[in-house]
């Protein structure tokens, strides 16, 4: 399996966007830093409203150079734009939305996830990091947690583990794990493989995945367009 990081990330973002592209209900979505932010570019659905935990509902696309407003950023410090009907509020209201279960879905990157649905995405204890952000509030508060993660690390080791080794952000919180090669849902206490990419086989996924999982009886080919 050879895929550039850039292509992998784009594929993951596009596949996650499919989760939201057709909703006819309003969907309130919080996007983490990295791949998750890219998801917004592919959603194209006016019913999806992006919430930024630094105090905004209705975040628009990233600002082009002539649109940049220093005081208008998302939680990843990227300059963004406003949509019609957007609103601003303080951080306690923003996390009231999140903690109170008003955010329908959050898309987060992770270092590791495991077969218990545990997510490790806040710290690598290497002495160089000291920060947690809104991740713990988001995984426990959002109604649906989607993990955007490359299937393997640079050494080819599975990032979908039997058991996370890194400090956990939230226990049993992952609902959907989307990699460049596969889609896993967390169902009935375990992972279920729902989709695989066109260029891989079930055996390929088995080889590249450390976690135990069931294969769905209706496993499908992932739409990577």
């Amino acid at each position: 399996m050879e895929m550039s990081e850039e292509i992998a990330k784009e594929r993951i973002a596009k596949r996650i966007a499919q989760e939201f592209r057709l909703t006819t209900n309003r969907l309130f979505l919080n996007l983490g830093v990295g791949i998750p932010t890219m998801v917004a570019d592919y959603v194209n659905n006016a019913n999806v409203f992006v919430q930024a935990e630094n105090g905004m509902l209705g975040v628009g696309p990233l600002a082009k150079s002539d649109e940049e407003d220093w005081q208008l950023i998302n939680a990843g410090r990227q300059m963004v734009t406003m949509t019609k009907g957007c609103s601003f509020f303080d951080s306690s209201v923003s996390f009231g939305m999140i903690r109170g279960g008003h955010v329908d879905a959050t898309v987060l990157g992770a270092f590791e996830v495991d077969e218990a649905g545990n997510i490790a995405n806040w710290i690598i204890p290497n002495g160089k990091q000291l920060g947690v952000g809104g991740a713990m509030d988001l995984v426990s508060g959002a109604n649906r947690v989607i993990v955007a993660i490359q299937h393997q690390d640079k050494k080819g080791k599975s990032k979908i583990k039997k058991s996370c080794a890194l400090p956990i952000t939230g226990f049993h919180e992952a609902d959907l794990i989307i990699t460049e090669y596969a889609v896993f849902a967390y169902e009935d206490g375990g992972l279920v493989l729902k989709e695989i990419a066109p260029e891989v086989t079930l055996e390929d996924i088995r080889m590249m995945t450390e976690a135990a999982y069931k294969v769905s009886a209706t496993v499908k080919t992932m739409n990577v367009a």
Partner: protein
Amino acid sequence: MKKVIQIMSCEEAIKSIAPHSRVMVGGFGLRGYPEDLVDALAASGIGDLTIISNDLGSPGIGLGKLLTNNQIKGLEGNYYNWNPEVAAAYNEGKIKVNLLPQGTFAEGIRAAGAGIPAFYTLASVGTELAKGKETRTFGDKEYVLEYALPGDVALLKAEKADELGNLVYCKSARNFNPIMAMAAKYVIVEVGEIVAAGELDPECIVTPHMFVDVLVLKGR
């Protein structure tokens, strides 16, 4: 997920309220309460309701109609002296009443909306309203543990909405409306006017549309 904002008649909107529901109603002293929605609820005859509101209007006026109609099973609120029929019904054992200090009532509603199951407050410590409640000392003071107050449906009043459902209020008619919008699963708002998205200043929107399901236009 909430449906795209729906604009309905009061009668249509009220159909989402089942008997035995916990219904939050905005307002304070007959100001900032959804008059048409409350009238429609009274006309519907839906019963066994728990009404979560600051007060219960006046006898036969506003929420008072629901008591006159025997639609109320229980009350959670703060001040019923403006409607003496409440004390009478309570004394006769017709309704249950969970009486809370106004600040505790407000904070419990906010807590429900913000995912806080319980919090501590000084108010009522040692009094009859704290009887049977857990207390705990922080620093040199004793506090009482109070719980979140969630609702199934909220009937609210706002001055103006945009098409998305963002809300602004008018003066002291704001009161409990913004926090009840956060605390109830299904939120119906009676508004005076609906404007296009983008017409409300993003800095001045009090209730983001994330908290709103249905709009009804007052007087329709």
